[in-house]
């Protein structure tokens, strides 16, 4: 019962109930716990969303984070993934209506954490110039690399994310849509701008479509795209898992 009351008052911000506590000034003592909870959760968000915080400024970010924390408590003690819903939440805040790109910058940061902690897998590599091998691979089913995520933004979110880490962040020269790939090479998380068809292609590969057909689907969605460019992007950005290593892992 006490836990119910304690948790309810922690959430509501109300004064602690009388008669519950035996020592000190209950309001001040209770406030230590409330501050600890709010501070630890907003700090977890600030750690996970450094670019979003730089763009908004610390004060504004803290205000947004506190609103989020009031509505979305973690559902697990594994805090590294707390805030998966934060990008979507940002789109609901009226004060950020003029910052429509911000949620997509935050999505990049969600993907970066996911990539950082993803299971270790070697990416698919092909021998350069081995036409026979490429032909074989085009007829195979692959899995996206476990660290990989690719998504399309109607804003230059990738460029804004990259610039936010520089001393003097300037607005993008060209305000256009971008497709962003987040993945990992060894232990380093990488963020790359990729052809738009890459997202469609990875989506198809994730559904079990063979590589060649997935590339064709991507190109069909937009005829500007070159199959060779999509394939090169998949390989260059480590977007596919090496099936041999996956098999070794399953058998180990």
């Amino acid at each position, binding site marked *: 019962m*006490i*836990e*119910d009351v*304690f*948790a309810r008052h*922690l959430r509501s911000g109300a004064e602690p109930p009388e*008669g*519950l*506590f*035996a*020592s*000190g*000034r*209950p309001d*001040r*003592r*209770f406030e*230590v*716990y409330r501050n*600890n*909870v709010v501070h*630890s*959760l907003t700090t*977890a968000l600030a750690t996970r969303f450094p670019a979003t915080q730089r763009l908004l400024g610390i004060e504004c970010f803290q205000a947004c984070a506190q609103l989020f924390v009031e509505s979305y*408590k*973690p*559902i*697990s*003690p*594994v*805090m*590294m993934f707390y805030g998966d819903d934060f990008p979507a939440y940002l789109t609901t805040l009226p004060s950020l209506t003029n910052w429509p790109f911000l949620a997509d910058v935050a999505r990049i940061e969600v993907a970066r954490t996911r*990539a*950082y*902690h*993803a*299971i*270790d*897998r070697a990416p698919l590599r092909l021998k350069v110039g081995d036409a026979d091998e490429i032909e074989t691979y085009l007829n195979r089913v692959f899995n996206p690399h*476990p*660290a990989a995520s690719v998504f399309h933004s109607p804003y230059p979110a990738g460029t804004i994310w990259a610039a936010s880490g520089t001393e003097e962040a300037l607005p993008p020269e060209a305000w256009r849509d971008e497709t962003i790939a987040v993945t*990992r090479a060894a*232990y380093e998380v990488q963020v790359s701008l990729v052809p738009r068809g890459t997202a469609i292609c990875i989506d198809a590969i994730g559904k079990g479509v063979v590589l060649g057909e997935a590339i064709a689907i991507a190109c069909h969605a937009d005829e500007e795209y070159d199959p060779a460019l999509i394939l090169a992007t998949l390989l260059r950005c480590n977007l596919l898992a090496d099936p041999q290593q996956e098999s070794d892992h399953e058998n180990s």
Partner: protein
Amino acid sequence: MQESRPPLGAGVSFKPDHYEDLSSGQVELSFIEVHAENYMGSGGRPIAMLDRLRQHYSLSLHGVGLSIGGEAPPDPQHLQRVKAICERFQPCSFSEHLAWSTHEGAYFNDLLPLPYTAQTLGRGCDHIDLIQTTLKREILLENPATYITFSESTWTEVDFIHQIAQRTGCGLLLDLNNVHVSAGNHSFSAQDYLVHFPLQKVREIHLAGHAIEQFEDEKLLIDTHDRTVSEEVWDLFETVIATVGPIATLIEWDQDIPQFSTLLADAQRANARLTHYAGTMVAP
């Protein structure tokens, strides 16, 4: 059941900022400790760092998420995560807190206090039994730092902890900064607390820094883990090891992470005192 017992000597809580300082294994430490929940990802650099450090140092896992003092049993999914990480890293010790942190599926990311009653005692013992049975290992239970006490408590904290240890067979982690913080906040004598504490069941000591907030009508001690160990806490440490001899001792530092040399200085100071009471004990 596997024992939880870090090796004698001083250790430090490991933070990634200090990986370069520790990765070669040249620093003399008995063990390192990490928060288990920070290493529950599937792979990547954090796991690789721990694998490397384990080649040089014994590893102790310190959990913050099992909510032992909560009304509900530990979340089965999280308990399985803890089991998996213990199997993965084979730590010399797994410890948790006498506190609750999860309620109705929400995790508060803080160690919240519980009243000490017959009901909470039975419940806490049930939770520890479940954890130890699942992990197939003894756990160490840590005394909390608290800012409030409850009107309905019928047990002293020391007796409550002693009962838990007797009923479940768990070992104890004595956090001397927590003792000092709680003693200051609730106006009891930390030395008296230690006189009654079941020191023979203590397998590990935690030392850490705390903040002081001064108000017009009272002084509040806050368990911050963001600075060097206070002299008052060093005095408590001296009392304990003079009474029962050397115990594995960890310097905890979780916020405002300092240069490694600062953290190491506290560990070396602890090790010097442990060595003094061990006579011929040599740092590993």
